[in-house]
């Protein structure tokens, strides 16, 4: 853990506490300000079990189809209280989630470069919304048996959780669950569909 974010964090806390006194009802916790750009580089530590993306690297699709995170709020009370995500239900948030899915290669729970970048972006969102509790869902494509895929999906969820922990997020905020190949995102029967279905989703379960 770097001490760098501490100063703005304290400032943001003081600011939000002041705001909270004048607004009702206050949420349990307020979002903290994002760290400055200079602190959002790739971390040097990697979680155990995710070393090397193997020859399947690059097969995961880009995440461009997923809604991009909301505009970064500025350090003002107005901006924070106007953040739609603060007042939305978890269901509504999950409908247009700022948390991007993480994609995997065939029969793999390894995180490639694209996957790690995605998780790093998600970690920034989760640092901002520090009260969110997340269920990480592991999913698989239709190849492989239903039973095996439940196990593989669990591994994928655990790999994402481990990397989020390595980025400084508390393990208490995450639960993992596997849905195997039961809930494909794309019902097709070719690689283009399969690639979208080998994924982990970060679902907001409470806030």
């Amino acid at each position, binding site marked *: 853990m770097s001490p760098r974010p501490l100063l703005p964090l304290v400032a943001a806390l003081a600011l939000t506490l002041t705001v909270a006194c004048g607004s009702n009802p206050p949420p349990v916790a307020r979002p903290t300000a994002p760290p400055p750009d200079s602190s959002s580089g790739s971390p040097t530590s990697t979680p155990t*079990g995710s070393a090397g993306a193997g020859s399947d690297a690059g097969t995961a699709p880009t995440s461009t*189809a*997923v809604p991009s995170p909301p505009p970064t709020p500025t350090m003002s009370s107005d901006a924070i209280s106007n953040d739609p995500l603060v007042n939305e239900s*978890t*269901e509504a948030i*999950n*409908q*247009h*989630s700022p948390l991007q*899915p993480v994609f995997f290669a065939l029969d793999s729970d390894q995180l490639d470069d694209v996957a790690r970048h995605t998780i790093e972006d998600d970690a920034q969102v989760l640092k901002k919304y520090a009260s969110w509790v997340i*269920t990480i*869902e592991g*999913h698989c494509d*239709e*190849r*492989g*048996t*239903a*039973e*095996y895929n*439940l*196990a593989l999906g*669990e*591994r994928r969820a*655990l790999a994402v959780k481990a990397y989020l922990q390595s980025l400084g997020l508390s393990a208490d905020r995450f*639960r993992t*669950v*596997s*849905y195997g190949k*039961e*809930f494909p*995102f794309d019902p097709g029967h070719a690689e283009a569909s399969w690639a979208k279905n080998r994924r982990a*989703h970060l*679902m907001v*379960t409470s806030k």
Partner: protein
Amino acid sequence: MMSKASSVIGLMTASTLVFAAPTLTRAARITSTPLQAQGQVQGTPTQPQQPQPPQQQTQLTLSLSGSGSHPRLAIPAFIGAGADGDLIAAAKTVADVLWDDLDFEQEFDLVSKDAAARVPVAQTVETQAYDRWQDLGADALVVASIQRAPTGFTIDVKLVGIRGADRQQQKFGQSYKGCVLTNARACAHFISDDMHLKIRGLDGVAQTHLAFTSDRDAQRLAGRSLSAQGQSKEIYISDYDGGNQYRVTANQSLNLGSSWAPDGRTLAYTSWINGYEDIYVSNIFQARPPFRPAAGDSHKQNQFSSWSPDGTKLAFASDRDGGWDIYVVNSDGTNLHNITNSHREGIINNTPTWSPSGTQIAFTSDRGGTNQIYIMGVDGTGLDKLTSDASSTDRPTWSPAPFNTIAYAAGPGPGHDIVLIDVTTRKTIVLTDQIGDNESPAFAPNGRHVAFRTSRYGKDQIAIVSNTGKIQRKVTDLGNNTSPSWARTPR
């Protein structure tokens, strides 16, 4: 073969049941109870179903098991319905289903329905077109008559010879009382099991049930993002042939991995209803909330339970100690213990199944790299690697006794096939034929068939293959259907 079959029928002559008063009395006692119980289930499915007394095999002299031959039977249109529309319809259903039931076990060689339909209909035993049936190769005729009864209808079945001195000779006669118009199929299933038992010495499965998972009534799961679509999958049960399908869970979540308890009334299954996978045990005829013997939570997930043959214990997979291990727990939730003891995150032991004697458990493990099947004593000793396939194997299902085989899914992909391995000799046969993806085998209670999930019909469906590899039946049609389990009782 034909003369052999005739001699088999001839053997039966010595112990022919005369269709007379004592037989009728006995048949009424045997048949009325189970069929009335079936009617209760149909009419008021929420009422508890009383366990059925096991059928006593009192006519061992009729057993022809071990003869190795297959008498050729013909089933003419049932007689006696007259102009009674309901009775005509019931007679048609029973004749049709009885043909399918008798064909299923391959103990009888049957004259096809089409060929039988071209033979003139006769209203008495004496006036049957025996020469025509003989030309069709039949050894015996199933002459059945139907009558109205106070609560439904009665069917009298006589098996009569066709050839030579056997012509018009009765080989078998039973009266089946207690049939109900609302479930004529159940009447046929009862008759089929009775005929298989008394004529061939075989425990038939026509009165058993399947459980499986289906998305036919899928509802969108709440609280999910557009990129994480999920549709509910519930558990359904049906007759063994796919008749009378109905839903038994309604929790709008994911439910799979059904496992019938030996009592034929209790189902264990894996459900995500609380957001994590856990084992639920439910009596499908009672409206009580399901019991959770492994008491999971989001950090102690449990899946793929399997009942011990005596119904006192469940084996299942759980990650409660870090890695995925195989556990055994009493059905009341006591004495939960880890039998594989890997305790290693990253190792996955999964899908346990009990040996017929209840002393061993087969399961999958990827401890050696790929997913393979292992056998271990219930006490955790005697680890034995059963499969060493080039590609992974999955979902072992141990046969009932007297067989000692394990069915599993295997294949280099993209599809899988159902394979049988003899546990003693380790010889394998592939039951399915490389068409589509074939997974999740479940043995019939007499070990002669395997139900499985297949994509061969486009969508995922439950189908049944004989233990010699002949595809017999497609059981489901509506939606996608997966994860079958075959009840061991009631018969």
